[in-house]
């Protein structure tokens, strides 16, 4: 069995940044395992611009953002294996992988960084009744067909879900000659950025039908149309409002799920809310020496934050190899009153240099409310927010100084408050 110091599963934005972080902290022996035939992950098919504003202070396209990190990995001579699928990881950090060249291989790592990203929720996850005909794709699959392979999956298109990927694909299909008839959204508001609603839908006069859903799929071999309906306040379809839309393609943009089947095999404990591992301030999971970062941990809306988080995971994996331990738990971070989850779940203030970014999402749209952070019942942070939406991840930096103020703190609570 070949041994390595750090093995990173996934060569997308998280894996690349984690590798760079580990090397910057002095680790020589690193290996990235990537299942696709190139590095960069999903960024390669995200050809639109708007990436990297925080990191590089300019707007890059997905491939350009990926290239900056791939080039750095190449410059640092960090080894990677492409076309390599990891099929097992256990808690002793033995990784089983397979590729055409090596066959089935077993590798042992001192530290593992989970960076497998997330995948799209499919039709089966939302239970749309009707026939099992061709012409129904996830938005990301359609994006790969159009942007990487160069063919259109259909002509008359309806998109279910108004998250950013759905909006981006509405524009993309239109530019390539498709007729995008509508974007259907179950909630009373779009899950995507305002900029995308304006530039992907309004620019092309594509209607956004809020509080609507698809109630039936029509077609034998190929999709011929869908029935949509308005939903009431309990998100139940209203029969009288049903409307038929003829179309040959339905794209689903109905959410992303962290891809953690491998993590579970290694006995990594997952959060019921995010679907990702429960980690501490150092991004270590409950299994000593296994770290997680990027969309496998929780779904981010900006790749810049994925890179920032992943560099930290890489550096901590390096510190672990150099003898540091991250197992002691001091403070538990809990969320309530509108805040759905936060990462990390546990904080040991001793492991914080300068500050730590606590990232979280709210469960509803809130206007003119406050984000409050309590240290054992003392409200230490109270920030007014003009708007909070589930589509925007919030980040609050907790400084070393705050933790010094509460040396005996056992619990931090994050909530949305009116006053």
């Amino acid at each position, binding site marked *: 069995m070949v041994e390595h110091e750090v093995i990173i599963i996934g060569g997308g934005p998280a894996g690349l940044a984690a590798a760079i972080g580990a090397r910057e902290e002095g680790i020589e022996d690193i290996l990235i395992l990537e299942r696709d035939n190139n590095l960069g992950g999903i960024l390669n098919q995200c*050809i639109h611009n708007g990436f990297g504003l925080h990191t590089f202070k300019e707007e890059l396209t997905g491939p*350009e953002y990926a290239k900056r990190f791939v080039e750095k990995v190449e410059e640092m001579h960090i080894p990677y294996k492409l076309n390599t699928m990891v099929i097992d990881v256990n808690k002793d950090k033995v990784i089983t992988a397979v590729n055409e060249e090596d066959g089935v291989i077993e590798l042992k790592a001192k530290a593992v960084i989970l960076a497998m990203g997330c995948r799209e929720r499919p039709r089966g996850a939302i239970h749309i009744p009707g026939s099992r005909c061709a012409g129904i794709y996830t938005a990301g699959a359609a994006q790969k067909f159009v*942007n990487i392979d*160069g063919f259109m999956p259909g002509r008359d298109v309806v998109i279910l879900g108004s998250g950013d990927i759905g909006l981006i694909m509405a524009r993309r299909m239109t530019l390539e000659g498709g007729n995008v008839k509508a974007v259907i959204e179950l909630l009373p508001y779009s899950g995507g950025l305002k900029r995308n609603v*304006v530039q992907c839908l309004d620019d092309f006069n594509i209607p956004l039908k809020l509080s609507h859903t698809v109630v039936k799929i029509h077609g034998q071999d190929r999709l011929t149309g869908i029935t949509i309906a308005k939903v009431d306040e309990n998100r139940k379809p209203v029969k009288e409002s049903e409307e038929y839309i003829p179309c040959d393609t339905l794209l689903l943009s109905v959410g992303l799920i962290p891809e953690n089947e491998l993590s579970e095999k290694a006995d990594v404990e997952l959060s019921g809310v995010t679907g990702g591992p429960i980690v501490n301030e150092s991004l270590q999971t409950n299994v000593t020496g296994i770290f997680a970062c990027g969309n496998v941990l929780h779904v981010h809306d900006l790749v810049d934050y994925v890179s920032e988080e992943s560099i930290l995971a890489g550096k901590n994996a390096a510190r672990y190899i150099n003898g540091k331990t991250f197992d002691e738990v001091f403070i538990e971070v809990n969320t309530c009153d509108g805040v759905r989850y936060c990462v990390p779940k546990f904080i040991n203030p001793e492991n914080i240099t300068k500050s730590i970014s606590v990232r979280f999402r709210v469960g509803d749209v809130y206007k003119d409310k406050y984000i409050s952070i309590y240290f054992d019942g003392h409200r230490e942070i109270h920030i007014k927010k*003009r708007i909070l*939406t589930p589509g925007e991840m919030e980040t609050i930096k907790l400084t070393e100084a705050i933790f010094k103020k509460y040396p005996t703190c056992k619990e931090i609570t994050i909530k949305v408050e009116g006053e």
Partner: protein
Amino acid sequence: MEEKKEITCIGCPIGCMLEVTLEYNEVKDVKGYTCLKGKTYAIKECTNPTRILTSTVKVKNGTTNMVSVKTIQDIPKDKIKECMDEIKGLAVKAPIHAGDIIVSNVAGTMVDIIATKDVPEHL
């Protein structure tokens, strides 16, 4: 002649509804903004709306079928269709490097379309 336009501000997630009053294509008044970003956006959007266009172009003899491209600067919004028509049917030969000019002065905009990724030659 006075004309009223309603647009959504893209400056932040609030998405203020802006009501712009135009007279002979000149902005006379902007209502509904909560910060200066909104007012600036409304004026730009009503007098000279521009966008970065991103798309793909076919590749001959490359390791992938398509190369991703973008306009190196903003182009007028009403030129998007013309630009797409110009790159449709186009095929470029690998190898291609990110930054290579794929189309110069696309649709008479004085803006070039460049590649945003490398496509090595298929050997």
